[in-house]
């Protein structure tokens, strides 16, 4: 099975092959070559809320949280946020846009909170890292900045709104 993934801003191509005895995984980061990993299924375990396997002779316990295209993978006190698309999803995306991985043109709330200040204005251009709004969560004020230079299409929230995790906050005009 073929996938495309994005992690820490880098795009990867992935091939997963399953046989009765082995997992065969190939990874290719953009601008580099393919690397291959063979994993015997005897060393692969499914646990409560985790999968465990031996990689590079070291045993890992990974907790993969998420579904669809967005996953957060935890292991050894560390984590990664990964977007992964199988071929069906890639087809959908390429029909929606001009192909390749989707660049997000919507800013969503990363956690539940209350909007205390809105700086973004519809129709105005913003620079990368420019503050768009302030959200209060966990006793702290969090300044939310623009992920890229863009033109603001719609602002979905106003001061005083309480939002849930994943709620749409701002949408940008499609970047060229």
């Amino acid at each position, binding site marked *: *099975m073929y*996938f495309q*993934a994005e*992690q*820490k801003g*880098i795009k*990867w191509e*992935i091939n*997963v092959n*399953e046989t009765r005895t082995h*997992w065969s*995984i190939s*990874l290719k980061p953009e601008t580099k070559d393919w*690397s291959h*990993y063979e*994993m015997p299924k005897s060393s692969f375990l499914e646990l*409560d*809320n*985790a*999968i465990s*396997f031996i*990689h*590079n002779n070291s045993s*890992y*316990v*990974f*907790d*993969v*949280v998420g*579904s669809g295209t967005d*996953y*957060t*993978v*935890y*292991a*050894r*006190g*560390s*984590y*990664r946020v*990964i977007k*992964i698309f*199988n071929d*069906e999803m890639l087809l959908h995306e390429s029909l929606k846009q001009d192909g390749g991985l989707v660049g997000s043109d919507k800013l969503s709330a*990363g*956690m*539940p*909170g209350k909007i205390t200040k809105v700086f973004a204005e519809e129709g105005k251009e913003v620079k990368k890292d420019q503050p768009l709004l302030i959200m209060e*969560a*966990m*006793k*702290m004020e*969090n300044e939310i900045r623009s992920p890229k230079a863009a033109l603001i299409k719609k602002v979905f929230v106003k001061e005083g709104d309480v939002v849930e995790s994943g709620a749409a906050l701002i949408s940008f005009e499609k970047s060229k």
Partner: protein
Amino acid sequence: MFKKILVANRGEIALRVIRACRELGIGSVAVYSDADRNSLHVALADEAYHIGPTPSKESYLNIAKIIDVCKKAGAEAVHPGYGFLSENEDFARALKKENLVFIGPTPENIEAMGDKLNARKIMQEAGVPIVPGSPGPVTTEEEATKVAQKIGLPVIIKASSGGGGKGMRIVHKIEDLPSALRAAKSEGLNFFKDDTVYIERYIGNPKHIEIQIFGDSQGNVVHLYERECSIQRRHQKVIEESPSPSLPPEIREKMGEISVRAAKAIGYIGAGTFEFIFDNKTKDFFFMEMNTRLQVEHPITEMVTGIDLVREQIFVALGRPLSFKQSEIKQTGHSIECRICAEDPVTFIPSPGTIRRCRNPQGPFIRVDGYAYPGSTVPMEYDPMIAKVIVWGDNREVCIQRMKRALLETNMTGIKTNIVLLRTILQHPTFIDGHYTTQFVEKEISVNPDIFRFVLDESFLIAAAITAYNDRKSKDTSRLKITTRWKDMARLKGLRN
């Protein structure tokens, strides 16, 4: 001895107090808000009472509700923990009026040290060195400019009722002074309802070193030596250690003596901490503020002195004299504490949610004060700190290795944690040589984005790919089942005909 103590707090400190009560045979009464129903302190206490909706104002900060629970449960004393109502003199007074014991200092102690300007004056009169600054509040730009020119730039403008790093502005150039003054005053008004500000010299190579003191109702006061808390980010402590690797022994003794003298001068009862700014170059120390409560980082003092501070708080509240004399207090070995917080280690944005897997470190000389367990929730309305990992070692080197070992064993999934940040700090040469200042994390760690190097990128991708593969495979198989169901339906229809 008290029959029951109400713990007016939540999270790990509530657990800490419940444990001290248990060890003394005292009944523990927990209170909880909506969000904390499945919290560990509720499960472990002898009794638990619901005190309201999640927002702190309606639950943990609600004095009337807490006193109500005391009466219902028959608790004779209240331990306020840290934060919440622990430094609220109105709460202390309200308890006194109802003949309930507040396990902490007197309301007068709290009031005296709660106003930072007043505290400065009292300390100065007691002979405690204070940071050179304005003799009183500063209201106009002219006053501020005169003070700044007298004590020399850079200066820091501080809100008198402030705390937790709010209501402060650092000024390096005289022309920035007017706007900084306005900003500090407005923050003081917005967060603490008081726009009184004063000015102090800003110390360039500052270390945050604090002295733990303990006083009883008979006028005895001792100090339990120091803790260094310079590993901070935006004035939030991240790692603390005791003893301080940079403190010369004679300065240590001097700071201890001065703190004891100051505590006696104000008739302080209970556990308290004097926070000092220590200039690592000149070895000068200046009083910053006094915390009239038990501190988050108290465990490292317990590990190094062998004294149970919460137990002693209960004894002092009963009116007993201190269980130890100054000559009996010694620092043995070294201790470090790391605060595990539910936040993104790079952006520090809080990461509330449900904890899925949870593994605490164990083994020799490890202590974990935390409230996480698999399936527990980290609510978004409260502090993001979920656990403190504390280690003890014969010396600092052993301690650092042991803490690195402990953090390798610590694993929490479902929420982001700052574990990789802690591991990065512990390996940094500036931390290892001990001469780090309060600027260290923001200047050397926060700008280096490579704190995710402990696990290879590929390993995560492999896990995600296999999971995505299995997700897709199970979707295909369920489609197969639907086809079979259609077949079944047709067969059934065929049979009926």
